[in-house]
């Protein structure tokens, strides 16, 4: 398990670096998928096959939509990313890195406890946890998604004058 864990971790880091250094937005997206794959493998090795599968299903679909947006926004030929676009994400990344280093360096006992507790979580246990103690969180997420859905519908609705015949009529 350790070897595959290390391989998956290294692949995740390398792929994430490639996401940042790629100038072509579509290539960056491809590396983002690879990075998410590596994370899915990590999840699987940590005993959460359900989360691993969902990670691939959900993110693969999500990034596909992102791909369409990249093509629509930038045009098929010139999907270039300006280096300046990375300033904000880098700051956030540095904050996360600092947090991780702090946990590993100054609270190794806590980190060790988390890593040591590896045991399989079945999809049933996950479902019971989500619809039991974390029900409020799930409902809030559902509210957010519904708001997003309504917003997208509002933005995407047709602005045609009422005199035109409706399509399909």
């Amino acid at each position, binding site marked *: 398990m350790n070897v595959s864990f290390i391989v998956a971790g290294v692949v995740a880091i390398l792929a994430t670096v490639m996401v940042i250094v790629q100038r072509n937005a579509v290539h960056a997206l491809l590396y983002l998928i690879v990075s998410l794959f590596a994370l899915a493998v990590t999840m699987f090795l940590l005993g959460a096959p359900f989360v691993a599968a969902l990670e691939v299903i959900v993110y693969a679909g999500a990034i596909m939509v992102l791909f369409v947006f990249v093509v629509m926004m930038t045009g098929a030929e010139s999907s270039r990313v300006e280096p300046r676009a990375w300033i904000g994400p880098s700051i956030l990344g540095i904050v996360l890195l600092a947090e991780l280093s702090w946990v590993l360096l100054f609270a190794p006992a806590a980190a060790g406890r988390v890593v040591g507790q590896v045991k399989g979580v079945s*999809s049933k246990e996950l479902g019971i946890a989500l619809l039991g103690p974390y029900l409020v969180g799930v409902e809030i997420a559902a509210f957010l998604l519904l708001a997003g859905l309504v917003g997208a519908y509002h933005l995407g609705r047709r602005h045609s004058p009422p005199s035109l015949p409706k399509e399909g009529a």
Partner: protein
Amino acid sequence: MNPVLFAIALVFGILFFAAFVIWIERRFLALVQERYGPNRVGPLGLVQVIADIIKILTKENWIPPFADKGVFVIAPMIIMVTVLASFAVIPLGPGIVASDLDVGLLFFLAMSSLAVYSVALAGWASNSKFALLGGIRAVGQMVSYEVFMGISLLGVVLQTGSFSLVAIIEAQRRLWFCVPQFVGFVVFFIAGLAETRRIPFDLPEAESELVAGYHTEYSGFKFAMFYLGEYVGITLISSMIVVLFFGGWLGPWLPPFLWFVVKTLFFVVVFVLIRGSLPRPRYDQLIGFGWKLMFPLALANLVATGGIVLALAR
């Protein structure tokens, strides 16, 4: 059996089966259209596909100068890898399965959502307008149809209580799921047609408007991968239908593995006959059909199944 040997045998077996499916399609389509189809090479034309493969392998491995080379080469590989990987969780008979994953069904869904990348990236990397239009159409179609493909299967999962495909087959000993989950079966079948981009869902490669859609710029071996990938996909969806709704290897008299092959072949032939008989809809009709009819149907089926399972459990 050694798992590595088994995996190799599985991959080659499936590729041969897919080549056989190509022959079935060409002969059956010919039958529908009152032609003979390929009948010269070998008995009944069975070796025709081998001849085609040899021809296509000896062609020049050409990449258009305006294409994005790396992605252009990767795209056809993705479809082969994802479709073949899906077979890892499909039980061909009792004990004949590469990996009886606890989340087998989710693995299949994950792989089928990755297959979209192949088509989309092929369309983008070709850097030509027909290919790009085909790729974008494929994304819209496959992402939409994937949503209720997953939901249509949840009824089966509810009745079984497991995502494992072996458990799903074992749960059908008394009654095949095509009876209690008839709605789920119909929705999955239609979504499966859309996922394999077959007529009537072949808008990504509609030849009357987009030349050949996403694989316009492809030739030689890379085209062959798309072509064979389509037939491996048909085999995959057929075997998934058999596993989920028609009892997998279960059946009287014949050995289990043979039952599985016979049932899969039946659905392959249904796929071919559908191609021979249906026209191609407009794109907005296709998306509207998916979201306005299939999606609510799948949801209603899920709610009804959930209610009944809950009521029976009380």
